[in-house]
């Protein structure tokens, strides 16, 4: 796999706090550790060694305020930036392709006015200047489905359980509160659920 940036390696966004860096490091050290049952059968011994090294390197830079600042500056300068060849992180927000990245809002998740519709989602996205392809690439949800969500083409959308996940990830990507956004959207389709 490609490893992407130090942030990708730890499943974080560049907005992560020092505490989040610490927690993510604890988590991934455990996940890739000698005793972990979650990864031993999934990765070859060589891959495991490699990914452990990456996690350690990422942590060494991101836990040090000075090194992190230098790293962020390098990331912001496109030609020198390490290229995330195949971002496959834990959360969609961190999967933002390396560049050019329209600002996905940091800070607390926002709520759209009730009821959330395809049109209001689309408006929120367009205000941020984020193309659909961008969300599709990061979330692995097909562009077609994202278009259907925005066009309220409910009959063409997948089963509700999947749709809920799709809308949540779409919302999360735009910095919207995922669960309540999806709930409001879905309520118009199946008010009883």
């Amino acid at each position, binding site marked *: 796999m490609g490893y992407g940036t130090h942030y990708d390696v730890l499943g974080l966004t560049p907005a992560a706090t020092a505490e*989040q860096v610490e927690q993510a490091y604890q*988590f991934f050290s455990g996940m890739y550790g000698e005793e972990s049952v*979650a*990864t031993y059968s999934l990765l070859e011994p060589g891959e495991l060694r490699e990914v452990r090294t990456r996690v350690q390197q990422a942590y060494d830079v991101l836990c040090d305020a000075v090194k992190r600042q230098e790293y962020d500056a390098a990331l912001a300068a496109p030609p020198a930036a390490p290229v995330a060849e*195949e971002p496959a992180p*834990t959360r969609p927000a961190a999967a933002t392709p390396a560049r050019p990245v329209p600002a996905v809002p940091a800070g607390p998740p926002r709520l759209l006015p009730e009821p959330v519709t*395809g049109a209001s989602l689309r408006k929120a996205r367009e205000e941020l200047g984020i193309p659909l392809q961008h969300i599709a690439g990061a979330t*692995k949800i097909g562009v077609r489905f994202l278009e259907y969500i925005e066009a309220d083409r409910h009959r063409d959308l997948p089963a*509700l359980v999947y749709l809920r*996940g799709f809308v949540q990830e779409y919302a999360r990507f735009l910095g919207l509160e995922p669960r309540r956004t999806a709930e409001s959207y879905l309520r118009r389709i199946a008010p009883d659920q």
Partner: protein
Amino acid sequence: MTTPAPVPARPRRQIWSIGGGKGGIGKSLLTASLGYQLAKMGKRVILVDSDLGGANLHTCLGLAAPERTLGDFIRRRAERIEDVLVETGIPLLRLISGASDFLAAANIKYPQKVRVLNRIRALEVDVVLLDLGAGTSYNIIDFFLVSDVGLLTVVPEPTSIENAYRFIKSALYRRFRNAVQNDEVRQLIEAALDQKNPHGIRTPLDLLATVEREHPGEAQILKNEMAAFRPQFVVNQVREPADAGIGHQLVAACARHLGVRTTYAGFVHYDEAVWRSVRQRRLFMVDAPRSRAAEDITRLVRGLVQGETLTLPW
């Protein structure tokens, strides 16, 4: 453009399946207790013992082996699937027992399977729960793939987790096969099923990369299948806090190394009350409603019904 689509009168009937790829990890126990809890919440529930060959869901419910089973329906000794439905003694909860005639059942042919799946889909209830057998044969995978909610049971042991990953890959490759028309891509998918294939494809992400390189026009189909495939982990037999954390590790590992977006539905503690009830052929949800395991099940079902999953605290 914003006119909402016509609203269905009632929530759609849902199929939940309980798989995991390994035997003895609590699939049947989970099926019985999830069903019990859903029925208690007022949902009309049918449990289907689709562990063709190892059927024992009736025992988890404290019932003797029913006269009529899914095997009778498969062999057409029963005309309608409703004819092999039995009451469990618990309001709103009914059972379609597994085949006692396991030879016939284990060799179920494709058209028979389609007939069974279609009839299950048409059952007049709120939730159908499918208790799946162990392994990753097409019979089991196809039952898993028809479900709206696909639960993957694991216990915190290497063998169980290894089988769960194998299950995920088999199910995803089966989805790919069903979605892709292109013969060469189909052959790649076929080849990928063998871990030691000459293309060096070990994971769905490798497969996707190969298809993107060699048949770029077909890659989006695989991507859509990957996006729509959302199994949910349940960690059973949790004995220490770190065990419950394994669910998060599995979700992260699947996203990074398989490209599959799973979620973590919840966990159930290892509980002496469970096997005490099992030994007496009774359901612990009835026998020991205040036990830790029963409380875990209650929380798990609430989360599943509300579409909530466990997430990392940061």
